[in-house]
């Protein structure tokens, strides 16, 4: 049945005037061209546009990088001067932990700070490094009791003077633990250790020791 209808339709189509067939052919060609363009050429063009966009981004990155490195070149004399200053101030020295602890203990004793507790540890995490240097970071904490807040502050001051140019203060606290009363005065009178406050300080010690020194 289908074949018969198809045959009839084909006969009808064949019987159409030539001008209609020509117009139908032109329409079919146009549609095929547009479809082909939509399916193939548009994709190709889209890829080319993406490639251009990527090249544009690469150029922008290259220009930014070039500008940065040019600025570094221009700034090099000033940077070099600061570098020399930092070297002079001892930024490239390493932390002598034992020496610092001994110094803190002596300073605490001199300022009547009892129950000194210290903690010193290498900070976890990746460190910046260059061909010659590596950043070294230690976290240092001192906690003690005391009679006067001025003693505690003086102790902190002495520690910072020892680590000048290397430290970044993280936390410092003073807390009054008890008031002055008759028992406290009696204990002081008898020469017994008395603590009226709790003092704590925590800071980062940062240095940039040369890698060869670290190896030694």
């Amino acid at each position, binding site marked *: 049945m289908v074949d018969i209808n198809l045959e009839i339709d084909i006969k009808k189509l064949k019987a*159409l*005037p030539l001008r209609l067939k020509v*117009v139908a052919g032109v329409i079919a060609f146009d549609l095929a061209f547009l479809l082909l363009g939509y399916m193939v050429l548009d994709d190709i063009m889209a890829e080319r*546009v993406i490639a251009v966009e990527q090249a544009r981004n690469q150029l922008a990155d*290259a220009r930014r990088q070039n500008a940065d490195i040019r600025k*570094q070149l221009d700034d090099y004399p000033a940077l070099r001067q600061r570098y020399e200053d930092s070297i002079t101030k001892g930024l490239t020295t390493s932390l002598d932990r034992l020496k610092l602890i001994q110094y803190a203990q002596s300073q605490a004793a001199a300022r009547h700070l009892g129950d000194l507790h210290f903690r010193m540890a290498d900070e976890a995490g990746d460190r910046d490094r*260059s061909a010659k*240097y590596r950043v070294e970071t230690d976290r240092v904490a001192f906690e003690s009791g005391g009679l006067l807040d001025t003693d505690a502050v003086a102790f902190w001051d002495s520690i910072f003077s020892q680590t000048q140019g290397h430290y970044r203060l993280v936390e410092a606290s003073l807390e009054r633990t008890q008031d002055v009363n008759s028992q406290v005065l009696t204990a002081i009178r008898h020469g017994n250790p008395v603590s009226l406050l709790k003092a704590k300080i925590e800071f980062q010690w940062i240095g940039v020791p040369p890698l060869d020194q670290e190896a030694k």
Partner: protein
Amino acid sequence: MPRRRRPIFGRLFQHPLLSQTAGRASRLMQGPLERMFGPIAARLRKFGLLESVTRFVLTIGDEGATLVQLHGQTVVDAVFVGPETEDGLGLLRSYLDKDHRAGLLVAADVLEQMYRDDQLPKVGRFDRGKLLKRRLDVTFPQDRLKAGLPFGSEGKAIFASLPETEAIRLWIEFLESLPNPVTGFCLMPFESAEIAGELGPAAGAEESQVWRVLVTQQATSGFRQIFETEGRMVVTRLAQRPAAEMSPQTVAQLIERELRSSISYVKRLGYSEQDRLDLIVLAEPEVCRAVEERDLPISSLTAYTPYQAGLLLGLGEVAPEDSGLSDVLHALWLAGKKHPLLTLPTAPLRDRLLHDHIFKVGFAAAAALSLFAVADLVSLGLDAFETTTTTDVLEKQLANERQATEIIKAKLAGFDVPLDDVLLVDDTADAIARHAVDIKAMVQQVATALGPDIFVQRAVFRVPSLVAGAAPARPAPPPPKLGVRGRPAAAGGGEVLYELSLIVRFEPNPAAPHVPLEQAKALQDRLAKQFPGDAISAVRLPVNPLRSQVMEGTTGDAGRGPGTVQTAEYLIQKKG
């Protein structure tokens, strides 16, 4: 002159001023427009894309045929071909050969025309066409030339057929052999029924039904009566002209006799004596006068010559002033319509018209698609060119930038201390310097701000970024509370460089319980002076026990009544 009954727009377009202006503008434009578009229009007409300005109307009757040639709406020529004309079809063909693309409207004014009213059942909008065709085939099963037309809103339809007599068969053969696009067959009485309504007196407010009968004389057929009511033809009759010459009185008698016999027939279709019947006669002036003298069973009589009627209908001059023939009038009336009401085509004629229509639409679609395709192709080509050139330019610029970078890198590599080492040391020094804080000075500032009877219970200095960075596993500290007094510490943008939390204690004073609160407020002001530029906020203030104030707090605060220790908490923040 008789009254004019054309609609307002019809009359407006016939206004002399408008006609003169249009004619003048047309004459002015004709020259340049003709020169500019004339060749293009001629070529388009040759391909069948534009309708030819020339049209023909062929009226076929039992006594001959009339071919009217029109240019726009103007009659160019008219020719009558009678039975005695030698090679009548050849003569007609010679006229039609003048322009093969000129459309030909064919109107049948023959005696044998079949009309039948029918009531269609209510069906869906999309099934009406199929139903109409089915009913048409049932009504006129043997006829080839037939058509149906629904009218009114009550599902009524009129079916018409043109029996295929020997004469009609010859005409079909002739028409199908023509290269012109042929629209036919139209039924002249059916198409011209509206003329009666245009020429007759206007319908009043009377309740009785208005019937109109148009009587015209054609060379092709004879005297034609067309009965019309409610805007459509109900009956048409043809009285063939006697062979002998008739006086006007005889013609009037003939018209009266035919009218009376038609009325007896129309009565079967619903006409009654109480209804209004308007008679419109188009005939020679003498016949008009003779008809006016007769005692006719009608409500009104309107008698014009075809010449007068043509002017009234806006068709122009359709006949000599003393002529009684209305062939050209009917032809022009039909040609003036946008579409004929009914067309009874043969299959080849219908297919030819359909093909013409499809070709026009198809050509327009093909032209539009081709233009679009070409535009698309040009656009793609331009895009391809642009992307290619842009890519080349960008690649060259990228190579230049990279080359420049390499040169600078080579310069930097030539320094005794590499840039990386310098930057590492400098950045580290910057990081240390950025967080430099003089904690001793800060404690002294706090001490300066404190007044008598105020003691620091707890002071905590903290750099949040370093605390958080040092212990990422620790939960982030809660956001600072909104200060109960002063500037909200954490509000606003910027990194908090450091914060100092102070808990201070005020000596109890049972005699003046409101003093700690005042002291706390004063202390906040002093802290603000000591730490200019920092955000100072009071996180907690001493409780005010006065009766005029509201006391509010939690269980932990309940013990702090009058006479107990009062504390306040402050938060000092510095933002970068």
